[in-house]
């Protein structure tokens, strides 16, 4: 798993690639919670390069989301590949997270 955090004209984007599982999610948690502590909002999560996510990985985003709810922050998941979207839809996580097909959709929402 690789994590890249970009500050694009004040827009904070965290781009992840590779597998997000019980072995890699602690590293993601560290980065994500660091941004949450700084009360970043909105936080865009670019899923374009994600090849797999398990429930440990999803729990990491849930923790981040709950942390952001505390200060009224918004987490927007963007460009989720079809296979990963199936996992989200299967578990009705599309009811939990704000999901957008493209970055411009996410920005304009």
């Amino acid at each position, binding site marked *: 798993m690789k994590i890249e955090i970009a500050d694009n004209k004040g827009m904070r984007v965290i781009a992840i690639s590779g597998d997000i599982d*019980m072995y890699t999610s602690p590293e993601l948690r560290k980065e994500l919670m660091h941004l949450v502590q700084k009360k970043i909002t909105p936080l865009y999560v670019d899923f374009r390069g994600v090849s797999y996510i398990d429930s440990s990985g999803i729990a*990491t985003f849930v923790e981040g*989301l709950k942390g952001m709810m505390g200060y009224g922050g918004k987490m927007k998941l963007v460009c989720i590949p079809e296979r990963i979207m199936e996992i989200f839809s299967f578990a009705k996580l599309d009811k*939990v997270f704000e999901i957008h097909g493209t970055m411009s959709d996410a920005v304009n929402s």
Partner: protein
Amino acid sequence: MGEEAKLTGSEKRPGDTEKKVNELRLLLEVSPIISSTLELDELMPLVMEKAKDMMDAEACSILFYNRETDKLEFEVALCAEDSASEVLRQKITLDMGQGIAGWVAQNREVLVIDDVRKDSRFFGGADKQTGFVTRSIIAVPLIGRSGLIGVAEVINPKSTEFDHEIFQLLCRQFAIAIENAQFHRESLQRERLRQQLEIAAVIQKSFLPDSPDLTKGRLRLSAVNISASQVGGDVYDFIDLPGGKTGVLIGDVSGKGISAALYMAKFISDFRHVSLLTDRPDVALNRLNAQASGAPLGMFLTAIYAIIDTETGRLEISVAGHPPFLRLTKGEVKVMSFQSGPPLGIVPAEYPVTTLSLEGGDALLFVTDGVFDAKNREGERIGFERIIECVRANASGEQIARRVVEYVEEFSRGTDRADDLTMVEMRWSA
């Protein structure tokens, strides 16, 4: 032959033989220590004490390379003052390239410095913190099979005649011994963890119903639950409710390992309490969701809770982000994807309820994702479609859950089971 010629040659100076003998004696003394112990804490001070004595040095130390932080940390420091050793261990770390040790670690080369004041690489920070005065230093990289282990330093050696090559030779042996001891320590830790996971799996199983089978009137329930090698958080339960009703739960806690097992244990005790307060599955899930909202580390749980009237075969079902279940009716297999709320413990929610009437001979199969997410040796996932096919092929038989589990086990033979695998079969006899 060469060494022998040197030792007996006519150019030999009077002290040479004695020096060589002393150096070889050191190697002879240290070699058995190095090869006889796998305990790092015993090994390092013993060897370094020997090196310090032989070189008549004031102090010596070992710094370990921490791969995660990319820094050098003092592991052993032998000085006249114990307090100085403690300060080094507690407070001083060096970046790669910083100070003499940092330079040695970065360049993987030996450094012999007779006067550190004349060397710009010297880092005075350690001396400032400890009050020790470093004048000269010999620093050798410790390199094992897997790369850099650390740096060994001998400080203010009085014996200038000592052969540095002997110290390097000693360090080479020492590096291998440290690596062996580290490997030994890691394998012990792995073994302890494995034992703890085994115990967690046994305790986790004890929370499940005493018997995986239950018969009540025309209702027959049977469950199969197989733990992952790392222990997952699958849960199922059968609850006897007032008014001739029976509650059937299947669930899956996010994540794996001891945290998932512990959370599953908490959830099942909450469930047993809440399920007795209501005969409506949606109300039960609403309450359980509220109770789970404070779950640590973003942990959540997917679940299906069904309550069946054992007189009529009428079912009420509520789903919390759990995978669909299968219905076998009149020889057909149907995927039942009901309206669902989110998994429990994430956001406030009102769970929907769906009603279903079973007909004689019907069977429902509830699964956790460990069933269709199982991988084979090539890393291919079994997938929901293959499970449906397997159910279809066994639709006319009894104990379909067992047949499916056998199929999954055959598919993933030769791999470590990554997730728990749970199936609950509900039959309404004709």
